[in-house]
């Protein structure tokens, strides 16, 4: 009996059967679903990072009380950056273990995963989904400080020349502004600069730079729209946490 014969006899006597086709199909699906999910998570994280960059004025860093690095770390959406990094790593890993994934170098695997996440994330950001996701996250996770909260903190320092809020009344001499803590301010805007696209009318959310001149008085040197509004133009209505 030659070796080939012995092998076939062993297979027959031990009733060794080939694995069923469905196991390979299921594995393939699992790998590609895993890749799709991780790319999706990466895309969502990337869209929120874009939203944060759009919302937070990083130029204010130099005016923050603490060090530049400390300020930057407090403004960066670290949790979303972590999500993005983890999602990219996982998507690279799943792609590597796809049928021909070993053909790709690490750089290519990283490139494909990043490219898919960036494209999908940008589309999600443009559609306005990033803001809704970020706010939903802020509502459900107590420890999470939302972009709006960070931004409000940044623009709620009248003593340092930064004030944000909603216009409640407009007269030729002054604006009445309600800040994020509900305090009403009288704003002298005679010498202020503001872009033509901004409508100084009640209900408009704005941010001001200037000088505090009294307990509830502020002299504005520039007025800007609260900014980073979703592209559909709606102002966020829900405050994440009180």
């Amino acid at each position, binding site marked *: 009996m030659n070796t080939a014969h012995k092998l076939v006899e062993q297979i027959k006597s031990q009733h060794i059967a080939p*694995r069923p086709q469905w196991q390979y199909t299921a594995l393939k699906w699992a790998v590609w679903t895993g890749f799709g999910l991780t790319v999706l998570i990466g895309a969502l994280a990337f869209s929120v990072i874009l939203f944060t960059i759009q919302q937070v004025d990083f130029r204010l860093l130099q005016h923050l009380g603490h060090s530049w690095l400390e300020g930057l770390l407090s403004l960066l959406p670290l949790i979303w950056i972590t999500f993005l990094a983890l999602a990219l790593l996982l998507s690279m890993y799943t792609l590597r273990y796809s049928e021909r994934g*070993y053909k790709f170098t690490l750089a290519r695997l990283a490139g494909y995963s990043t490219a898919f996440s960036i494209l999908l994330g940008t589309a999600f950001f443009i559609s306005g989904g990033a803001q809704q996701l970020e706010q939903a996250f802020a509502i459900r996770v107590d420890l999470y400080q939302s972009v709006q909260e960070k931004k409000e903190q940044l623009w709620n320092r009248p003593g340092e020349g930064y004030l944000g809020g909603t216009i409640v009344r407009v007269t030729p001499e002054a604006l009445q502004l309600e800040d994020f803590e509900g305090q009403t301010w009288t704003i002298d805007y005679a010498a202020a600069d503001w872009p033509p696209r901004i409508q100084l009318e009640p209900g408009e959310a704005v941010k001001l730079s200037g000088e505090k001149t009294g307990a509830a008085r502020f002299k504005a040197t520039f007025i800007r729209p609260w900014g980073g509004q979703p592209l559909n133009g709606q102002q966020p209505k829900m405050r994440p946490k009180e």
Partner: protein
Amino acid sequence: MLIASKKCNELTDQEVVDRALREVDYFSCLYERYEPALLRYVRRITGAGQDGAEDILQDAFIKIWRNLRGYDPGMKLSSWLYRIVHNEAVSALRKQTSFGKNRTVDWADAEPLLLHHLLNEVETEEGSIPAEQLHSWISQLPQKYREVILLRYFEELDYEAISDVLQIPEGTVATRLNRARKALEKTARATLTPNQKK
């Protein structure tokens, strides 16, 4: 009932796979077709004797049988077989205390391509490098270099096939081969005594 060699020879690899899945006897065609090359490879990579290598190959072929439906026809069957046999051999090698302990491999049929390459770099008085000497140098290489040298110069697989066997990118195959050749040259230069060199 074992399939006659003549009948096996008339079938392509894919046909053998398809028929084996319907009738296990056809699996013997696959074994007979690839046994000589794969057995030689197992012996070279593990340094095992004939019996040990046959055991490893037998175990590998049981795995091949169990995974036969997972074979992707987009890849050469030989590459897929080498992959499974390679993994089985490496796994067996890890269980050994050292590479090629008590080895009895006959390296006399060492592929001359590598010898020519080395001879261009390291010229010897005799004009050739004895197979035993070459074996000794190759066995000193780290595992990842040894396997690419064996697959490229002894099994004569191309870069694409080596990439499929080792499941690494083709660029990595090229890099490892280059480093392996340099390491071999370095060992050769250090080993050959001055009067052995021209």
